């Protein structure tokens, strides 16, 4: 860690500048708890000398509106309070605020940087696992409901045997203007499929290509697929 105040003397030609470099610290936004990087956001000093840091004007404006971050859904405070995000984990211990500046040690700095990367990965993995686990019960519930709905509404779904025979008709645009002959049905090309609907899309496409072979896009009027009642 770099020491608190480092005096750096720059020589610019004849001019000598004495510059105080303060230690840089990544703060947390008071409202949404995201990190405030240097050069971002506003700090508000209340009359009792309490400092509120905000990452952007959105948070600042919400604060001015006197909103409670624990009630605003998109803030970390709300999410932690309502157990949407991970609250307790050993990886949080590493990110405690330390007020004592450390003497600079190259090895220490190097190891710290490596550790930060690793700990970050572990923490984010655990956090996403937490959310995944939270959403698992909902998924199971939805599948159960879907199954129930299928049972109750099966009469709305076509019988599989009926779905087996799908007829594809390709109509060719006739060059004549006579409305009677405007659509000429090319040899109705039936296709039968043995199995279920989900694969229908791909299957139809391949057969469309067969059926419309030799026709330009202007000649194909439309293609109809239907069940046996056509």
């Amino acid at each position: 860690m770099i020491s608190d105040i480092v005096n750096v003397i720059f020589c610019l030609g004849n001019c000598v500048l004495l510059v105080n470099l303060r230690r840089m610290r990544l703060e947390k936004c008071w409202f949404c708890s995201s990190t405030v990087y240097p050069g971002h956001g506003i700090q508000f000093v209340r009359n009792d000398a309490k400092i509120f840091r905000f990452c952007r004007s959105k948070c600042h404006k919400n604060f001015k509106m006197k909103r409670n971050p624990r009630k605003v859904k998109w803030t970390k405070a709300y999410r932690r309070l309502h157990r949407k995000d991970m609250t307790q984990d050993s990886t949080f211990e590493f990110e405690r605020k330390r007020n004592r500046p450390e003497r600079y040690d190259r090895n220490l700095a190097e190891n710290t940087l490596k550790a930060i990367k690793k700990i970050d990965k572990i923490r984010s993995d655990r956090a996403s696992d937490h959310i995944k686990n939270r959403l698992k019960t909902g998924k199971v519930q939805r599948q159960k409901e879907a199954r129930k709905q299928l049972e109750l509404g099966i009469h709305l779904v076509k019988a599989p045997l009926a779905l087996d025979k799908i007829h594809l008709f390709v109509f060719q645009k006739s060059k004549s203007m006579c409305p009677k002959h405007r659509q000429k049905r090319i040899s109705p090309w039936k296709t039968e499929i043995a199995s279920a609907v989900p694969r229908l899309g791909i299957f139809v496409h391949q057969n469309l290509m067969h059926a419309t072979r030799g026709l330009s896009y202007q000649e194909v009027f439309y293609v109809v697929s239907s069940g046996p009642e056509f």
Partner: protein
Amino acid sequence: MIQPQTHLNVADNSRARELMCIRVIGASNRRYAHIGDVIVAVIKEAVPNTPLERSEVITAVIISTRKELKRDNGMIIRYDDNAAVVIDQEGNPKGTQIFGAIARELRQLNFTKIVSLAPEVL
């Protein structure tokens, strides 16, 4: 952005309570005063039976403003009120205590006595 007619709180124990800015010191047509600028003010409200009285003209230095203070490193600081500290002609504070957090800019402007008395320097 303090200008004539602006009321300011007093951030020290110099027995004045409220000041009204009369003039911004620095240039003949200077419009606004910010943190660290000296103003001439009249005392609008004072603690009774003290050396400083109401409608007395004094100089003060501005300690905090509601208008944001921008620093070169990108930090922006906003205070909750406009406040000043009563000073004499040399720049020494008349009171013995300062209340509230003080901005670092005052140290660069040679108000070292004020900065040393301050409970917190931002």
